[in-house]
């Protein structure tokens, strides 16, 4: 289903935006180093680079959120200093953020009003929102509160907010990480329509397939520098990956799963009403994870992943014992520490502040979960020497780049901290490992190492449950895959017997035999694609 990108409407004209020698220097890092870039009217240009390459910083400078340390920005031939986002918007630049800049407790129309200049009559504005949303196939109800919207709907609000200002340049920061494959296709239609109308688009991503499908041109960033330009349609994923990371994409050694062992995790009809008013209720979840296999849970974020993880880890204890069984013990009412004693280890989604205490040394962070399994506490007192030794073992085994066991967690890069946390959990020799977003925001090298470590752990007979929003990752490492949507879990399928397309459809809650308690039956055509 790959559309070769159409020719650019205004191919011959002058660049709409041109960056010349843009640098951004922070005390710790050089985020951008003399970046040159231009985009013409109607052009969809990809900004390609892996996590930490400096893509987001560059876009924030164009949008006036931060200022460049050096270099010039030309807007339609004029040398400009973009002083604020409001200034950028008045020039005709719109931006859709990766982590949305919406206000949960306000309504859609209030959120839109905040980004428009001058006082707005909210009723009129609501009409204009409806108008734009029909025109571009972005259905959304202007009167609803943001916290009641799905992630996909929130993204539509962000896009509409930009479109209402008739942008001539639209910046999209990793827009597809929150969408199902079908919704991605719908988004691409909208973007192509905009491009045909002459709007320029800067499309930030690290997903090679998407870029080849959508973008006319691409600028590749590595470690803050431009390492190449290309026409994605003429490249292979391999050739673009080389530009992006400077070498071949690493691959995992993946043998077939050994014959399934005993059940280490059983979810037996787990239902739980969310305590958090913005949370998702879990509904009758069944799942078994066996020793020696990796089971993956796919899904668009905000469909109950957080709540499910908390129910398994014990951070949110349940009212009953039986729904969560760890190594044949009914553990629903046990606390996290008691579940760890049964052999559970857990890598949470947030690294800083949950998986690790930012201001504490790695040795202290080792103590966080390994105090019991590694015998780091004696007679109520901490054995600092042993805690340090264990931290050093994690650092060495997982090649963590840091200033030693005494370095505070917040001084590590995302990839290195994730390696440390994964190492801390794996080196405790768990019987069951639950891992959320194992490679989220991690560089390619660290991601490969972590994935390989998970596979090796499985081969040693551990049961592994992975929750991820990256379908590619799940297909790479999992033996079986299941999908979570609106707090329900689909049946698990062997990875070899399913496809990304199927799982994509399931991600909107439409798997065979799916029960629904919401009127999913009669959605609008667009709704069914986006939900």
């Amino acid at each position: 289903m790959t559309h070769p990108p159409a020719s650019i409407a205004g191919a011959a004209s002058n660049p709409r935006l041109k960056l010349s020698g843009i640098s951004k220097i922070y005390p710790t890092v050089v985020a951008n180093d003399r970046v040159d870039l231009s985009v013409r009217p109607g052009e969809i240009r990809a900004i390609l680079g892996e996590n930490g390459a400096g893509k987001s910083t560059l876009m924030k400078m164009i949008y006036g959120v931060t200022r460049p340390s050096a270099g010039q920005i030309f807007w339609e031939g004029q040398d400009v200093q973009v002083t604020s986002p409001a200034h950028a918007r008045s020039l005709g630049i719109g931006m859709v953020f990766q982590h949305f800049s919406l206000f949960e407790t306000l309504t859609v129309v209030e959120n839109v009003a905040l980004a428009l200049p001058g006082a707005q009559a909210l009723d009129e504005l609501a009409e204009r929102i409806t108008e734009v949303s029909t025109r571009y196939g972005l259905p959304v109800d202007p009167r609803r509160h943001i916290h009641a919207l799905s992630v996909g709907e929130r993204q539509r609000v962000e896009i509409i907010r930009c479109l209402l200002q008739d942008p001539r340049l639209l910046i999209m920061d990793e827009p597809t990480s929150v969408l199902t494959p079908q919704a991605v296709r719908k988004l691409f239609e909208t973007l192509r329509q905009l491009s045909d109308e002459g709007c320029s688009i800067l499309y930030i991503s690290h997903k090679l397939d998407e870029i080849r499908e959508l973008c006319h041109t691409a600028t590749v960033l590595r470690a803050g520098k431009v390492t190449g330009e290309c026409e994605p349609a003429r490249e292979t994923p391999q050739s673009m990956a080389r530009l992006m990371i400077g070498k071949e994409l690493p691959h995992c050694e993946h043998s077939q799963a050994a014959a399934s062992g005993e059940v280490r995790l059983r979810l037996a009809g787990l239902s739980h009403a969310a305590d958090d008013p913005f949370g998702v209720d879990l509904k009758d979840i069944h799942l078994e994870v066996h020793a020696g296999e990796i089971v993956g849970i796919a899904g668009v974020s905000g469909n109950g992943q957080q709540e499910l993880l908390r129910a398994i880890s014990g951070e949110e204890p349940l009212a009953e014992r039986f729904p969560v069984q760890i190594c044949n013990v009914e553990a629903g009412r046990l606390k996290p520490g008691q579940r760890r004693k049964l052999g559970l280890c857990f890598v949470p989604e947030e690294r800083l502040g949950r998986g690790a205490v930012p201001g504490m040394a790695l040795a202290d962070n080792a103590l966080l979960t390994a105090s019991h399994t590694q015998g780091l506490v004696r007679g109520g007192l901490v054995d600092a020497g042993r805690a340090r030794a264990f931290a050093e073992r994690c650092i060495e085994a997982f090649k963590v780049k840091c200033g030693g066991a005494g370095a505070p967690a917040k001084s590590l890069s995302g990839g290195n901290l994730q390696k440390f946390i994964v190492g801390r959990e794996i080196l405790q020799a768990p019987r069951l490992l639950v891992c959320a977003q194992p490679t989220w925001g991690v560089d390619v090298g660290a991601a490969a190492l972590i994935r390989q470590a998970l596979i090796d752990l499985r081969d040693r007979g551990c049961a592994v449950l992975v929750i991820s929003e990256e379908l590619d990752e799940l297909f790479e490492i999992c033996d079986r895959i299941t999908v979570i949507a609106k707090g329900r879990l689909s049946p698990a399928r062997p990875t070899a017997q399913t496809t990304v397309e199927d799982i994509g459809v399931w991600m909107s809650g439409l798997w065979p035999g799916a029960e629904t308690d919401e009127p999913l039956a009669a959605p609008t055509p667009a709704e069914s694609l986006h939900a």
Partner: protein
Amino acid sequence: MDANLFTSMLFATVVAGTPLIIVALGLLVSERAGVLNLGAEGMMAMGAVTAFAITHHSGSPWLGVLAGMSAGMAMALLFGVLTLTLMANQVASGLALAIFGVGLAAFVGKPYEAVALQAVPPIRIPFIADIPLIGEALYNQQLLVYFSWALFWGLLWFLYRSRAGLVLRAVGESPASAHAIGYPVIRIRYLAVLFGGAMAGIGGAFLSVFYTPMWAEGMVAGRGWIALALVVFATWRPLRVMIGAYLFGGVMITQLFIQGSGLQIDFPSQFLSSLPYWATIVVLVVISRNVNTIRLNSPLSLGKPYRPDA
């Protein structure tokens, strides 16, 4: 209860509730912007002593109120510099402000402890003040009582009808998002904190110039803290601040009336005097019990420092 007693109790309740309303509504604005200023007690104390001193020297209570307001704002500015510019911990800085303000007020107020002010006559609103039972109590009051009502209506309009109020709420919910779409978060927070300080100063001025009228060390007597509790009780909504403040005023006045009534009841006066404090605790418990009410209503960024990266 005879009619006169009712009228005078209602009158006293309104008077007792007024400083709480003014201070709590000011704090509500700064908390809506995401800034938790625990220094209300100190700002009120400084407002009270400054207003008293200026009134004493100038003879004009209105100059006094203005001075009290400025003193409250000066204290709030100090807090703002610490927490907004220097990013100090809001809780620690608020506590520091409370301790410092009370101490400084005691220090500068020493010479005024034996001074008396002339009572300021109330302002009688023609015709409606003649309504039986409530007229005398509600419409023959100090100007600042009417001011507290105007403040309430103004704030309702500001928060829910004006664009500036929308921006304020947005900043309080997510300063990072507000910054990303281009609002000057720190400047808005400064304004909100200064407004809180101004109101705390006026509230203090009301105590020393109109309510008692005198100055004594410790005369604020925890009202700053009670106002902070009221904002939580009100789940950050102005109407509930009004209701809460008058409820508190009622508790304070009732125990005073019982003590002063000469009724020979076998109950120590100290226990009666502690009623408003117990009431604060009970109210906090009742409203905080439901975690979701607080989560849904409290400004999401409350108490968290924010600094935009340049």
